[in-house]
């Protein structure tokens, strides 16, 4: 591998190319990756879609990829010409979360393990702002960065077989929202009434890569009211 190249280039399938950066994810790289994707999609019409990881991109092509040396060189040049400073900030979403014990099934247990009071844990969780690194795993699942270090804790040894949709959890260095009922190993500390993925909508997921998320604590009665609005279809989240 040539150390001077900005990223590694793999053709793993005749129509798929993976680009990978040998570094830790951070906001600078995130902004570059967002910018880079726009340039690639504009420049190469054969690229039909790009998916993203923390430090990688996957390029899907509608035809077989040939002239790999030439192609990778073109991509290197585009990447190196990108500004390293953030050009445009993403939107900020304030997501209502109810941390009441009836939803926060593991709040007490996690607080005990972290040597915090449940109130302090919630205070810390809601005071941080989280970056959407990418969306993956399940439809509408946001990979968020920015969990305060004091809230980091390994996942549960035994995953729960059923975590309800909308549950907000902490696992490892991550926090996130379960878009659907699913099994899961994160400590559940609250629940949002807001739907993460609405397949019938033209834009099924409100957030996009590069946006920021804040969790806003709400009471159980506020949760019930918002949940009622969700059921009749009038619940809408606006970026601030």
């Amino acid at each position, binding site marked *: 591998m040539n150390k001077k190249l900005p990223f590694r280039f793999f053709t793993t399938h005749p129509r798929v190319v993976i680009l990978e950066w040998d570094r830790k994810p951070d906001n600078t790289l995130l902004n570059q990756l967002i910018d880079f994707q726009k340039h690639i999609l504009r420049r190469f019409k054969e690229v039909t879609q790009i998916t993203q990881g923390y430090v990688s991109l996957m390029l899907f092509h509608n035809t077989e990829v040939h002239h790999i040396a030439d192609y990778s060189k073109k991509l290197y040049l585009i990447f190196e010409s990108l500004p390293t400073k953030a050009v445009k900030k993403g939107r900020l979403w304030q997501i209502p979360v109810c941390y009441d014990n009836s939803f926060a099934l593991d709040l007490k247990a996690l607080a005990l393990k972290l040597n915090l009071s449940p109130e302090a844990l919630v205070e810390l969780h809601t005071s941080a702002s989280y970056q959407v690194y*990418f969306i*993956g795993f*399940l439809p509408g699942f946001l990979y968020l960065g920015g969990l305060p270090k004091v809230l980091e804790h390994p996942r549960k040894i035994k995953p729960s077989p059923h975590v309800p949709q909308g549950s907000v959890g902490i696992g490892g260095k991550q926090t996130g929202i379960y878009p659907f009922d699913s099994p899961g190993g994160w400590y559940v500390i609250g629940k949002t009434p807001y739907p993460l993925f609405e*397949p019938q909508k033209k834009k099924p997921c409100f957030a996009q890569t590069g946006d920021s998320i804040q969790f806003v604590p709400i009471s159980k009665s506020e949760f019930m009211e918002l949940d009622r609005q969700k059921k009749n279809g009038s619940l809408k989240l606006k970026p601030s």
Partner: protein
Amino acid sequence: MIEVIHPGLYSSIQDSGRFGQQFLGVPISGAMDQIAMHWANSLLNNPKDSAVLEMCFRGPKLLFHQSTAIALAGAHMNATLNGVKVQNLNAIEIKENDILEFGNASKGTRTYMAVAGGIQSPEILGSRSQFKGITTDSRLNKFKLIPFAKVSFVPKKGARLSIPKLDLKNFKITVYKGPDYDLLPFEAQNQLTKSVFTISPKNSRMAYFLEQKLIHEIPFLWTTPVLPGTVQCTPDGTLMILMRDAQTTGGYPRVLQVSDEGLNLLAQKSTRDSFQFHLRAV
């Protein structure tokens, strides 16, 4: 409409998949054996990726409310129309109130049923493929009605599609190197490309787990995009081949990538079937 009297073991509506929404975490989905789907559709002059019924292990019992034509491809499922045997790979005329019943799969795992004009269940995000959280139902359920297009198609007498027979005993799956293949020690690379692997009972539309383990020491990876056919290896050496309903990102080393042909072949394989990987340059 087609009424589902009994859904079978695992039947679902599938097409060529939901491509273009993967950046939102939506799996590609689609027919596990795309070639068999194409064959079934082509017998009815349908566009080759019209939505079909995918049936796994044991097929359903169906009642047709209107006349139409159908075609079957893939595994043999001992299908009977009003009690009379029908064959794969030819167009079959269906009359109102006909009952089509499937048995157990042999010579493969999955059978495809195309309907003249295609199945017309709601298209969501560009596809009719059923998936939990995307379509109303994640698979075929009892008493559900499957809508299909009304087109006049009269099957030609004796018209059949002849296709090469699948060698189900001795088969090789063509693969390419995954991004992490070169991080494997020589012995592990050798094992991957030279030894025989067996599909474990843990196999579904999402992933096939293999019985044999691969010893490796690839360190922690940042979660990356994956796609159907990506072969991942967990820290304890378990190999899993991601299939059509695979999640869009994953955190395990990606040692191989199965070719499109290889994925279609694997769709007809199941528990205890064994195979070898055949490594090819992209």
